[in-house]
């Protein structure tokens, strides 16, 4: 099986050093062969792939809803591969990524933020807040996420209007917080991925800004799309 690791970079929130560091982390922490691609609006290197733009007109900058829509592009088979792993640029990899390529793939995987209080998540579901999902790490097999692309293309006007974030969209359209078995996505199990700013597992392991090297990946995602905000702290840990 051909393994592919994908990241995305657009705009100026992150500079090229983040892509290079992520690539280096993957090379140092993956014991199976893989191809690495960065989907970007400004391709300059051989592993860069130009991002499409077919959804861009739906984005309303003033509203700022569904702001990470460009991640949808990566599900439409822009690069070769059979087994895909997406990583945000601001992650710290602690352990062998082979683990992710060995997962049983009846369903695609996304980060289930175990640090969220499940009651708060349910309470705020219809208020489009407190989403339990985080798209910083996604694992899918080829074709598996085509329905998502199809859904966004078909319903772009409603989706860009309704969902403040991509994660919120995933939570509403492709996940069931009341019954994960009924969901399109499966959450990575507890103990795989944690958040630097939000903790690990609610309510027992919620220490913030703590490295947990027995886990696979640490996320720095802080749910902001404001350029230049909180992008430096990770560099101290590289």
């Amino acid at each position, binding site marked *: 099986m051909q393994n592919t690791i994908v990241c995305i970079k657009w705009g100026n929130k992150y500079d090229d050093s983040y892509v290079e560091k992520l690539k280096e982390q993957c090379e140092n922490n993956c014991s199976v062969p893989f191809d690495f691609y960065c989907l970007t609006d400004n391709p300059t290197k051989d592993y860069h792939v130009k991002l499409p733009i077919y959804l861009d007109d739906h984005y309303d900058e003033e509203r700022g*809803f569904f702001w990470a829509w460009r991640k949808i592009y990566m599900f439409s088979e822009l690069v070769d591969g059979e087994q895909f792993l997406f990583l945000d640029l601001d992650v710290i990899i602690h352990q062998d990524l082979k683990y992710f390529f060995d997962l049983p793939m009846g369903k695609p995987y996304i980060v289930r933020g175990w640090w969220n209080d499940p*009651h*708060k998540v*349910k*309470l705020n*579901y*219809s*208020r*489009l*807040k407190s989403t339990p999902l985080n798209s910083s790490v996604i694992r899918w097999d080829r074709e598996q996420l085509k329905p998502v692309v199809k859904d966004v293309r078909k*319903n772009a*006007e*409603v989706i860009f*209007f*309704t969902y*403040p974030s991509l994660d919120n969209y995933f939570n*509403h*359209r492709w996940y069931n917080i*009341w019954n994960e078995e009924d969901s399109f996505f499966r959450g990575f199990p507890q103990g795989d991925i944690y958040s630097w700013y939000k903790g690990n597992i609610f309510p027992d392991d919620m220490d913030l800004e703590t490295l947990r090297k027995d886990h696979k990946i640490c996320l720095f995602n802080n749910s902001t799309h404001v350029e230049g905000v909180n992008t430096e702290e990770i560099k101290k840990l590289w």
Partner: protein
Amino acid sequence: MVDIAQESFVATSLFFTHVKSDQERAAREWKQTFVDVERDLNYCYRRVMNATTVSQIQSKLWIIEELNNLNIKPDCVALLGGWYGNFLVQLLIDEYDTFLIHNFEIDEDVKTISYKFNKRHKDRKKYKCDILDVMFKTIYEKQSKNGKKFDTIINTSCEHMFHMKRFVDLNGYGLSKPTYVLQSTNSNRYDDHINCVRSAEVLAEQSGLENILYCGSKRLHDDMKRFMVIGD
């Protein structure tokens, strides 16, 4: 400053002055709902009280008032995003002896709690709730195959969703020209008010309805301005 529990008490009292049928059972079920929610779904308790305010009942009574003014008598109602249906279901059944009120919600806990508030109506098959996002899925298949069709669509949550024209287009000829009752607000004090409108006319425009029978606004108890459009 009136806190939310006092506000809910006042709203509940006001509501029960309007309840015409089976008052005793209604009171029992309401009380049990609050007991059950506090015990089993405690995280929803405050939200239930937020749904039980004077403004909430004012806006529902306004619907009844204007439907009566227009001499419209709903019989088979689709309630879009009807939340717990704590006020409106009873008011419609009392006023029009409504055959069915079918609430389409997206929140499983809302469904559970709405069945507690409306147990008497659920038991008589006059109230049901389905989990369905009306901006993505059609509701017309939910109508009885050989029985009554939805003659009234009520959406008092337009500020929480995309333009109603989407719903109207999505359901197209699947519905047989029902009357629409739509409410929204210009208040953007809540994050989840993703579609505030500046006037009832804008709300009407968003619906794409051809025939507007009523278009008006009302300042509610919480100082929020509410708009209502009735049309087909």
